[in-house]
């Protein structure tokens, strides 16, 4: 039973990781909290739903969700952040402008979905259950886990093994120096936002499938969880966000299984509070957070 819960938690944590890694990537590179990240996530779920609803296969819906969420995220950077960034000290401005973007996106989807909760048609993912060692794993869980692992690995490969990824890290490290070696920071930022949005969109589809509940407000709790996760993992740290997502997912699943239902959130945030009491920079945070550290 415990093992089963841990496994379920791992799956949930994998999806959180997709959400939180993208959220933290933007914080790491620009020091902005993108409060529209939850709305991008929700957009991914809707795009996949409407693709499937129109008769497309799920994999097409998934790809469409990734691409459209990525592009939406790029648009958010251009509209909400680019001018603010040029003005210098803009952390608070960015919070407000991305909150505004979030409201606009939510309102658009509220209008399109007519404020209805929508669900993927039954059997979008066939109900297949695998059993081994007394554990029970559904095909959907396998898909969620594989998608999360593959997507995070592609992102890590891109950031650490390609010259374009090296440029992204260079801009994060020192924007002026990156410009002087011929890197166009705007293009690099657009690319980073695309990756971030694509990850969120993928998470949105997986959550939409897992809970079979897609609505225009679904991004909000994830924004809160994502926020808690990146603080727990260390602001700006990608490995930290991964680790914290898995801990968070498992903690949440265990709390749901073994504690009175009203206490779940209280338990999770208390645990987070305790960890931060011991390690204020987060699990893998540094004084000046993360592998993708801020500019000097």
């Amino acid at each position, binding site marked *: 039973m415990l093992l089963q819960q841990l496994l379920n938690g791992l799956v949930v944590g994998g999806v959180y990781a997709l959400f939180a890694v993208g959220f933290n990537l933007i914080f790491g590179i620009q020091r902005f909290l993108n409060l529209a990240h939850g709305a991008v996530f929700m957009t991914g779920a809707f795009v996949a739903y409407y693709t499937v609803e129109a008769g497309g296969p799920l994999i097409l819906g998934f790809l469409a969700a990734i691409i459209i969420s990525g592009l939406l995220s790029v648009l958010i950077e251009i509209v909400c952040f680019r001018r603010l960034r040029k003005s210098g000290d803009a952390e608070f401005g960015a919070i407000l402008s991305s909150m505004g973007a979030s409201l606009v996106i939510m309102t658009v989807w509220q209008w399109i979905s007519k404020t209805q909760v929508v669900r993927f048609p039954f059997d979008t993912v066939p109900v297949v259950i695998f059993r081994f060692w007394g554990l029970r794993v559904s095909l959907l869980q396998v898909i969620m886990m594989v998608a999360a692992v593959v997507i995070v690995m592609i992102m890590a490969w891109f950031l650490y093994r390609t*010259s374009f990824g090296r440029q992204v890290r260079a801009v994060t490290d020192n924007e002026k*120096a990156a410009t*002087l*070696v*011929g890197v*166009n920071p705007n293009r690099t930022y657009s690319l980073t936002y695309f990756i971030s949005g694509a990850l969120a969109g993928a998470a949105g589809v997986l959550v939409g499938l897992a809970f079979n509940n897609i609505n225009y407000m679904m991004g909000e709790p994830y924004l809160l969880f994502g926020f808690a996760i990146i603080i727990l993992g260390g602001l700006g740290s990608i490995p930290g966000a991964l680790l914290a997502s898995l801990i968070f997912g498992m903690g949440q699943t265990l709390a749901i299984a073994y504690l009175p239902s009203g206490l779940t959130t209280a338990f999770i945030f208390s645990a987070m509070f305790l960890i931060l009491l011991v390690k204020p920079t987060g699990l893998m945070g540094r004084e000046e957070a993360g*592998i993708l550290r801020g500019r000097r």
Partner: protein
Amino acid sequence: MLDIADLEVRYDGIVALRGVSLTVGAGEVVALIGPNGAGKSTLINTISGLVSAASGTIHVGGEDFTHLRPWTISAKGVLQVPEGRQVFSDMTVLENLQLGATALRGRPSDLDVKDVFELFPILQERSTQLAGSLSGGQQQMLAIGRALMGAPKLLLLDEPSLGLAPVVISQVFAALRTLKEKGMTILLIEQNATLALDLSNRAYILDQGRIVLSGNSADLAADEGVVAHYLGVDAEV
């Protein structure tokens, strides 16, 4: 190679450069000296496109560079070694050098990482270390090496001796002399006027945003009036 005419730059209403004209010939090392706040860094950052010119023109190799974006200027082979090194401190020495090659954008280069290691052997020893863990002198060498990886046709150096110990300064300047002998075109900003005049063929003295004097470096260094007036204490170091 570099041809600047009547350049004027303003920051928030303050005039930083007033009608500066300056040339650097191919294969020439030209020093730009002057007191703090004279506008030396502003000039070099305007050439790099980080600061925009209010009026005047900048031509490199006959091409108008005045309003190009900074990454385009770097990609065309005008490379700056910025003040304070500005290495990518969370990345390895090797990655820093590889990033320097970004500026090539398909331009041919007759120099690779091995040549940089030959010029600065210490960088080879440290190639897998994070650049932020290097000493100031090593970071300066890395910053120069990084610029060299982009095959500069004009190398802009902003205060390469700043904050370095004398023994390290002489290592850095020995490397710059090697580059000079290989025919590199260099515009050097330097607070240490003695060093700058020693390395360069010609020099300009900038004061309060104007070129107040220019000439052969040897003549300027020999002119006691110049030494006393513009080079001050630095000249005695």
